[in-house]
């Protein structure tokens, strides 16, 4: 009996030592994995200030926010009406134009220029680019079409173009982020 206890205690020490080595191994893996996530300078990504005063109705510009394109579009009255005419309940990602713009500035549509399907940059913000059959943006990669409120209307993308946080800091400058 005493012999058996002795054996068990000795086994326990070996098991404990191997377990400690296992814990150490896991401890080593944590920083090795964590180092690949976004670093402090990237996370502190700055806000972007854009002068939008030169954008005429019907035009759009591209700005860069967090290393990605942002579309700033000055909608014409016709485009606003077209967007408001749509029955929300028929949309894949139901949102009104008003929900996607700031009050009093409904003609300023500011969205990420990143297709919600697989991340291509949709066409339609640049001069002379096709805007797709709904007059908003058209993603050439897999054929997603967005309307004049940048809502997904046709094609594989699941969501509307994302609206980033932004605020109009003056009559000419919008701060994104």
């Amino acid at each position, binding site marked *: 009996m005493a012999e058996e206890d002795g054996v068990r205690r000795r086994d326990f020490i070996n098991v404990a*030592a191997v377990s400690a*080595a296992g814990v150490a191994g896991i401890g080593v893996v944590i*920083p090795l994995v964590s*180092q690949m*996530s976004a*670093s*402090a*300078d990237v996370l502190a990504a700055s806000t972007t200030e854009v002068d939008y005063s030169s954008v005429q109705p019907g035009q759009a510009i591209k700005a860069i926010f967090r290393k990605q394109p942002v579309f700033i579009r000055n909608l014409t009255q016709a485009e606003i009406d077209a967007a408001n005419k749509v029955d929300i309940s028929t949309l894949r990602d139901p949102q009104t134009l008003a929900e996607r713009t700031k009050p009093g500035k409904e003609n300023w549509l500011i969205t990420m220029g990143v297709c919600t399907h697989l991340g291509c940059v949709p066409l339609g913000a640049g001069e002379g680019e096709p805007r797709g059959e709904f007059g908003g943006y058209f993603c050439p990669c897999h054929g997603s079409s967005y309307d004049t409120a940048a809502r997904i209307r046709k094609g594989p993308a699941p969501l509307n173009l994302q609206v980033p946080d932004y605020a109009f800091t003056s009559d000419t400058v919008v701060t994104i982020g």
Partner: protein
Amino acid sequence: MSFPWAKEYTPAHPFMKWMDERLPIPRLVYNAVGGGYEVPRNLNYFWNFGFLAGLCLVIQIVTGIVMAMHYAANSAVAFDTIEMTVRDVNWGWLMRYAHANGASAFFVVIYVHIFRGFYFGSYKAPREMVWLLGVVIFLLMMATAFMGYVLPWGQMSFWGAKVITGLFSAIPLVGEPLQQWLLGGFAPDNAALNRFFSLHYLLPFVILGVVILHIWALHIPGSSNPTGVEVKSESDTVPFYPYYVAKDGWAIGVFAILYCAFVFFAPNYFGHPDNYIPANPMSTPAHIVPEWYFWPFYAILRAFTQNFFFIPAKLMGVLAMFGAILVWFFLPWLDKSPIRSASYRPVYKAFFVVLCLDMLVLFYCGGAEAKEPYVMISQIAAMYYFAHFLIILPIVSAIEKPKPLPYSITEAVLGKDDAARLEPSA
């Protein structure tokens, strides 16, 4: 080859059996570091350093791959990317310090490993190939460490690159073009930095390959042991697993404590302040020294201050510095004594002790400023270094009268070996 009493791998699980018949990796591991590898039972703690060296290589490769993820080999931003890694990347400071101190740890371990070989005659037949591959590994390590030190593009990086490539300019006729070819320019810049980065990433994997050959070559005759007496019977050995796994395991713990003590509490101890100053091609630091692990060889380089007949001092220094390592390749044939272990060679043992002290002096002089009396001391120390390997060893091994060897490892450990009585007395 293995000893006839070594256990054979027997797959327990049907899957392992299936695997064994197709790709016998488990068998390979079992025979290399498992129950199938029979090891002399009397190894002392100096024999742990081979395993630790392997661990250091793994640490360097893993942390190095991480560092490379955040580094840019461009002379305009290289310094800044390292700082950014240390300051902003998650655990970046740990990766950087682990990698920098890992290099030092690797060399500490490897120097002990090499001097273990000197003392116990590990280079002697039938292990010459193990030794030769080991020297190749050491040379590759030095090249890798040198190029790695250039990458942060600090003052020491830059001037190190300039001075070390300058060594090649000592070679007659082709020297100058050779240096320019190595650097890809007249002085270290983008071209040099990029190729050093490329090679610094490549060489560790070459080292890994040679390490595998080194271990392969070791496993043909099996490990040496402190008596230097060949393994004779089953009672002389124990299987690697569990015996030496347990011993290496706790040695790793001791190593890890010392290593972490430096990484977390004195991470810049082995470094040089000047390498925190960005590279400046217009101004050389007042006192340039390589990393500590090059100091003995740097001391030998600087010891040659006079032209020797028609050979310029600069070329002599370079020849001697490379010669100081290359001489190790010839060690198995310089030391012809059939006795391996210095424990049974009183005269060699005395000279070994002098060699150790001599190395310490060379370490000190290599790190000191290039002025008297350090230069004179390093000249005397370098004289002994060459005399030891090229003059003393061949003579001592011819005339020395060794002490009686134990009959076997078992006898050395237990005081008696039953098998000894069966042997006819000579």
